[in-house]
């Protein structure tokens, strides 16, 4: 059950999207998310959706895997759409029953919202699917490095993120193990009231915290043994370099963003 979560997972590969510079991907994803919220009508949203679909094709990630990442946020999409259907009574009335009114405005806004959220999820999962966590944190560190003049410890933050990501699978395994061990002693996690169930988590979380702290000390010790002393004077193993693909991607994105702004201005209404 815990192991089915694919958000934030990395799928190694050699596609066009994999080969892009991590800094480039990070900035473009960020810009893309901003642009999704700039979209005012279906025409500009369509441009963004097509761009997102093109990227998924270029990532060579199987469609099934991508679709799986939508599952956890499905309730949010349904809820937002339902609220739009109920509260929005602009446009023509198509159907009326008691207090409930189905209007064209409501339906269009609901679809608009759903597509917007889906595009958002699609693009952000593509980023983590095609970029390894180490590259991603490396990119964050480099992009944030100007903040050093304000005495922000960028390297430390990036290292913390790398370690946190690295230990997620380890912790999941650990939880599985502890749960089995406590079940063998008759612990019951599935029945009882909310309070009983919350209390049943104590036998899992106490051992989990104890071993996490122990692991943290061991890791710190191992890092010190290898002379780690923070970012100062530390050289990098990996050089990050923009290739023609990165410039091409930026140019293409800029074109799409220009189209979005043009379409926003030309069409005043949602559809």
């Amino acid at each position: 059950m815990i192991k089915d979560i694919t958000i934030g997972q990395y799928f190694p590969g050699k596609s066009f999207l994999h080969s892009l510079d991590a800094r480039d991907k990070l900035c473009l994803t960020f810009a893309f998310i901003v642009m999704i919220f700039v979209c005012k009508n279906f025409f500009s949203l369509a441009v963004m959706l097509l761009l997102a679909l093109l990227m998924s094709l270029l990532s060579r990630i199987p469609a099934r895997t991508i679709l799986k990442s939508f599952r956890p946020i499905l309730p949010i999409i349904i809820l937002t759409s339902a609220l739009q259907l109920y509260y929005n009574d602009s446009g023509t009335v198509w159907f009326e029953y008691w207090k409930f009114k189905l209007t064209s405005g409501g339906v269009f806004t609901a679809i608009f919202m759903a597509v917007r959220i889906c595009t958002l999820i699609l693009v952000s999962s593509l980023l983590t699917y095609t970029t390894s966590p180490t590259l991603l944190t490396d990119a964050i560190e480099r992009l944030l490095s100007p903040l050093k003049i304000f005495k922000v410890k960028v390297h430390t933050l990036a290292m913390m993120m790398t370690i946190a990501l690295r230990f997620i699978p380890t912790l999941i395994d650990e939880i599985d193990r502890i749960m089995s061990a406590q079940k063998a002693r008759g612990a019951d996690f599935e029945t009882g009231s909310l309070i009983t169930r919350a209390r049943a988590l104590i036998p899992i979380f106490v051992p989990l915290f104890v071993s996490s702290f122990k692991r943290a000390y061991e890791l710190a010790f191992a890092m010190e043994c290898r002379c780690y002393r923070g970012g100062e004077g530390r050289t990098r193993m990996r050089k990050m370099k923009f290739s023609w693909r990165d410039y091409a991607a930026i140019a293409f994105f800029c074109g799409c963003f220009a189209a979005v702004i043009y379409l926003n201005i030309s069409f005043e209404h949602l559809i």
Partner: protein
Amino acid sequence: MALLETKNLSYRYGTGTPFEVAALDDVNIQIEKGELLAIIGHTGSGKSTLVQHLNGLLKPQQGQVIIDGQDIWQDKHTVRAARFKVGLCFQYPEYQLFESTVYKDIAFGPVNMGLSEAEVDECVRASAEYVGLAPEQLSKSPFELSGGEKRRVAIAGVMAMRPEILVLDEPTAGLDPRGRERLMRLICNYRETTSNTVVIVSHNMDEVAEFATRVLVMNNSRVAMSGSVGEVFSRYSEISSMGLTVPQITSIFASLRSLGIELPDDVFTVERGEKELLSLLRREGRL
């Protein structure tokens, strides 16, 4: 009739994904009352998956687990009953300690069984004695104890449920030689006083040879051999083809015999080896 048996037990991990692997393949075993069964096998041979089936932590994909003639997966109650009839103690069990005192931690299992306070108290004190914990240690925090003591507290926590079968997955892993020896003696002692069944998964062949009454060898998700210590360890070449070894003393005796020295080929414990060597030296008049 066997106390516990498995019939055609099969289990695969990751069915339907590219990572699908068989962990158990048509496993049929019987566990008799009162025996000390040792399960040995190479890493990944299916030992741990097998023991997790015995108390119903894993549901068989095929086959049955039968305790006292009853399939444990009949309904919800039989599964829960199986948890208490078969006490399973995982590898490195000291990681499962969580309570504020040793007493409360050992009592976790019995309390879950729904026993009365007096019964719980009796169970806790008896099992603390089995694992050699002094009564004053019961009020300490489990996190103050040494590694070996924590291990013994965790094992006592399983013993306290009074299981008919106590299953221990590598109970001595990571302990020093003296700790190993002591823990094995305590487990044997427990078995003799309670006349309960004990199942041990082990990688240490010397321990197995010394303490087990029967040995089960797992290889490639199947039961490869089953028999007494002598029956199993005398099949030297088969054992080593499965990536396992025989007890050290047995391989020493095998090398001595290959040098032409007349020694028996059924020596599996150091004690017996010592006797044989002494009698050889006496026979040759060198002692």
